[in-house]
C-alpha cells in the first residue's frame, strides 16, 4: 500500500508543471467566495470588486491602510482651509494609467464629477454629495470645495467607490478595468478566476508578485480541498466554520483571525407584535447563549457584542452583560408579557454560513423558552426584497458590515422598524459634533440605549478568518475596508 502510494506520488510529481522551482515564488492564487458581477468599483456595491481591485489596480486620492488609517495615494499631500471647506490636493507626478495615458488633475475632476453626477450608478453616491465644486488649478493641483465641513472627507475619498478612472476607459472598466495601480488587469475567465499581472512603470514601489489570480471558490466545501491540495495558497477572508480546526493543525498554513466591521445581529421587526413589546425582546436577549452560538456558528472565533458597535473601536463599551443568558429570567419576562406559553414566529436567513448555522442554534435556544421559530432560508434577492425593503419578517440574522453604522437605528423606515426619539437625538447631536471626546461620549450613550431597548439580538462581531501558506507575507490581518491589498505581499524564500 505504502509503496503504491509512493509510486503514485512520484508520478504526480512528474506530472506537476514545474512548481518545484527553488527560487522564491512570484505568483499567488487567492480564493474568494463571491465573483464580482463586473469589474468597475465605481459602478457597483459588490464588495468582491474591491476585494480584487482596490489598491492593486485602482487607486484614489487617498487610501485606507491596513489599520484603517488614511494614507496619501494619488494625492501626494493636501491642505485644508481654515473653515474646513476647501481641500487643495497636490497630485503625484509621473503617474500613468495601464493603457499608457497620463494621469492628471482632469482625471480627478472627471472621476469625482462622474461619481456624483445625475446618471451616476455609483453605489455610494452619498459619499460625494457634500462636494460643492471641483476645480482644476493646474495639471498637478485640484481644489475641492465642500458645502459644509466634513471630518470624514479624506477617509471617504479612500473608499473603493472613489478611485480615479480615466475618461478614455471609464465606460469599459466593467469588462476591462484600467487603473493606475501596481498590478494591471489581465484576464477574467467568468465563473472561474480573475488574473492580475505586474504593471510596468508603476510610480511607487513595484510589487513583488508577477502574477496574482483570484479564484472563485463558492463555499468552504470546495475551499478546503483546494487549499489542502495546494491549488490555492491564500484564503484571505473565508468563513470555514468548523473546518478551520483541520487547517489550524496543519503547519503548512498560517491562520490569522482579524476583526471586521460586521456586527452580527438577530434583526428584529420592532413594530410587529409581539416583538413591539420590550419584555419579549428582553426575554429573547436573555435566552440567547452567545458562547454556544459563537462556537457553533463561527468555530468559536466571533467576539460577543452587547450593542451595535465594533469591539475594536475606541468608543466601544462592553454591554454583553445587559441581559445575561438566563432561561428562568427569560421565561419570567415572557410570562409578564402575557405569553407564558410562548409563541410561533419566523426566522428568515440569508445564504451565508454564520446566518444559516447561527439560525439553527438560535432557533434551538429560543425553543427553550417556548418560542417556536420556523426557519425560512432565503436567497439574497428575496432577503433584500422581503426583509430589507418590504420589512415582511419577524426575525432575521445578518451581519452589518459598514464601518461605524450605529446611525442606521436612527434612519426612518430602516428595516428594524425601530423609532426612539431619544436615540435619534443622540445621533443628530453626533452629526454636529466634531470634538473627539464628545463624540466618544455620544457613541457610548447610543450603544447603551440600543442595548437597553434590546432592539435586536446583539450576537457577535464577525471574525475575519484569513488563511494562507505559511511562506506568504504581507496580507492584511484585519479588514478595515473590503480589500485584498497585494502591494506588500511576497513569498519568503
Amino acid at each position, binding site marked *: 500500500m505504502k509503496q503504491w502510494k509512493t509510486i503514485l506520488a512520484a508520478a504526480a510529481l512528474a506530472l506537476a508543471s514545474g512548481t518545484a522551482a527553488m527560487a522564491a515564488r512570484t505568483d499567488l492564487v487567492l480564493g474568494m467566495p463571491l465573483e464580482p458581477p463586473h469589474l468597475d468599483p465605481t459602478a457597483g456595491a*459588490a464588495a468582491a470588486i474591491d476585494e480584487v481591485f482596490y489598491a492593486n489596480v485602482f487607486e484614489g486620492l487617498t487610501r485606507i491602510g491596513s489599520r484603517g488609517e488614511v494614507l496619501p495615494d494619488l494625492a501626494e499631500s493636501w491642505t485644508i482651509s481654515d473653515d474646513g471647506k476647501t481641500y487643495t490636493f497636490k497630485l503625484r507626478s509621473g503617474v500613468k494609467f495601464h493603457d499608457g495615458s497620463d494621469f492628471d488633475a482632469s482625471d480627478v475632476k472627471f472621476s469625482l464629477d462622474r461619481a456624483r453626477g445625475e446618471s451616476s450608478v455609483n453605489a455610494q453616491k452619498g459619499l460625494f454629495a457634500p462636494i460643492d465644486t471641483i476645480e482644476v488649478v493646474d495639471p498637478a493641483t485640484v481644489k475641492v470645495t465642500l458645502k459644509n465641513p466634513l471630518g470624514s472627507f479624506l477617509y471617504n475619498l479612500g473608499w473603493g467607490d472613489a478611485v480615479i478612472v480615466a475618461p478614455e476607459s471609464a465606460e469599459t472598466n466593467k469588462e476591462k478595468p484600467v487603473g493606475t495601480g501596481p498590478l494591471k488587469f489581465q484576464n477574467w*475567465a467568468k465563473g472561474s478566476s480573475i488574473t492580475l499581472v505586474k504593471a510596468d512603470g508603476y510610480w511607487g514601489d513595484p510589487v513583488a508578485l508577477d502574477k496574482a489570480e483570484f479564484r472563485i471558490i463558492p463555499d468552504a*466545501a470546495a475551499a478546503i480541498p483546494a487549499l489542502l491540495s495546494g491549488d490555492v495558497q491564500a484564503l484571505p477572508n473565508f468563513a470555514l466554520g468548523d473546518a478551520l480546526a483541520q487547517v489550524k493543525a496543519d503547519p503548512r498554513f498560517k491562520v490569522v483571525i482579524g476583526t471586521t466591521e460586521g456586527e452580527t445581529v438577530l434583526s428584529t421587526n420592532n413594530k410587529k407584535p409581539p416583538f413591539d413589546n420590550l419584555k419579549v425582546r428582553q426575554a429573547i436577549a436573555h435566552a440567547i447563549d452567545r458562547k454556544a452560538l459563537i462556537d457553533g456558528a463561527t468555530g468559536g472565533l466571533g467576539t460577543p457584542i452587547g450593542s451595535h458597535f465594533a469591539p475594536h473601536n475606541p468608543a466601544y463599551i462592553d454591554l454583553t452583560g445587559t441581559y445575561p443568558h438566563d432561561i428562568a429570567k427569560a421565561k419570567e419576562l415572557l410570562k409578564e408579557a402575557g405569553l407564558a406559553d410562548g409563541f410561533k414566529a419566523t426566522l428568515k436567513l440569508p445564504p451565508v454560513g454564520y446566518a444559516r448555522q447561527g439560525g439553527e442554534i438560535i432557533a434551538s435556544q429560543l425553543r427553550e423558552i417556548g418560542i417556536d421559530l420556523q426557519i425560512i432560508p432565503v436567497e439574497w434577492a428575496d432577503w433584500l426584497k422581503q426583509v430589507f425593503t418590504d420589512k415582511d419578517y419577524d426575525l432575521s440574522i445578518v451581519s452589518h458590515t459598514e464601518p461605524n453604522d450605529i446611525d442606521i437605528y436612527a434612519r426612518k423606515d430602516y428595516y428594524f422598524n425601530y423609532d426612539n426619539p431619544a436615540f435619534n437625538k443622540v445621533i443628530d447631536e453626533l452629526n454636529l459634533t466634531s470634538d473627539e471626546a464628545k463624540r466618544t461620549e455620544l457613541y457610548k450613550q447610543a450603544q447603551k440605549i440600543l442595548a437597553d431597548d434590546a432592539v435586536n439580538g446583539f450576537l457577535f462581531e464577525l471574525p475575519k478568518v484569513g488563511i494562507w501558506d505559511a511562506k506568504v507575507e504581507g496580507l492584511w490581518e484585519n479588514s478595515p475596508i473590503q480589500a485584498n491589498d497585494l502591494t506588500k505581499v511576497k513569498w519568503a524564500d
Partner: protein
Amino acid sequence: MTIYLLKRLLIGIATLIVASLVVFLMLEVVPGDPARLMLGMNTSDAQVDLLREQMGLNQPLILRYLDWIRGLLRLDFGKSYTYSVPVIDLIRERLVVSFPLAVISLTLSTLIAIPVGLFAAARRGKAGDTAAMAVAQVGVAMPNFWFALLLVYVFAVWLRLVPAGGFPGWGNGIWPALKALILPALALALPQAAILARVTRAALIEVLNEDYIRTARAKGMPMRAVLWRHALRNAMIPVLTIMGLQFAFLLAGTIIIENVFYLPGLGRLVFQAIIQRDLIVVESVVMLLVAAVVLVNLIVDLSYALVDPRLRARQ
C-alpha cells in the same frame, strides 16, 4: 423513412415552442427584483427604477416574450443582468467546459459499460456475472455528488494527482485542462455506466434467447463470435435509447457536479443564475439544454433506422 423523420422533426419543433412558453412563464413569477439585487442594500428606489428601465423590465410580458423569442432565433439571447455581457458570450465560454465534460463522461461510461455488459451476458448466472452486476447495482445507487467528494479526497487531497476543482482554461495547454476534467467526468460517468451496463446485459440476454442465435450456437459458433457478430448489433436499440435518455441526465447532472468541482460550466452558470435571479441567463440556458435534448433524441431516432434495417423498411 423520410416521413417518419419529418414527423419527429415537427414534433421536436413543437416541443421547443411549448417549452419556451413554459420556461418564460415560470420564470416570470420568480420573486425578487434583479435590479435591486444588482445594486445592493444601500441604494435608493430611484436608482433601482432607473436600472429596471434600462433592463427592459418595465415592458409588458407579451412584448418581452416575443422579443426574447426573436432574439433566440438570431442567437441573440440578450444581456446578462449579473455580468452585463451578452448571454451568448457567456454560453460560449461555458460550453468549452461543459461540452467536453459531457463528451468525456459519455465516452467513459460507454467504454466501461459495453464491455462489462458483454462480459456479464457471456457468463450469465456465473460468479463473474453476479459480481459485475452487484458492482453495477452499487453504482446505480450511489449519489454522484457523494462519489465526487470521495474522488476529490482520494485523488486531489491525498494523492495530489489532479486539482481539487476549478478549470485553468484551454489556453494554458490541453493537459492541465483535461486533468481538471478527469474527476468530474468520472463522477458523472460511473452511475451512468452502471445503468448502461445493466441495460446492455439485459438486451444481450434477450437477443441470445432468440431462435437464430440458438441455431448459430448449435452449429458450433463460438460464444464470443455470436456476441460480437450478431447479438451486440441487435441489442443496440435499447442501448441507444438509454444513451439518449442519459444525455439529458448528464446535462442535469453537471449542475451538481460542476458545483462540487466549481467548474465554470453551463451547469454552474445556470445554478448561479437561478440563485441570483439572472432570468435571461436561466431562460437561455434552459432552452439551450432542452434544444440539445430534443436534438439528441432526433439523432437517436435516426440511428434506430440506421442500425435496424427492418425499421427502415417498415416506415
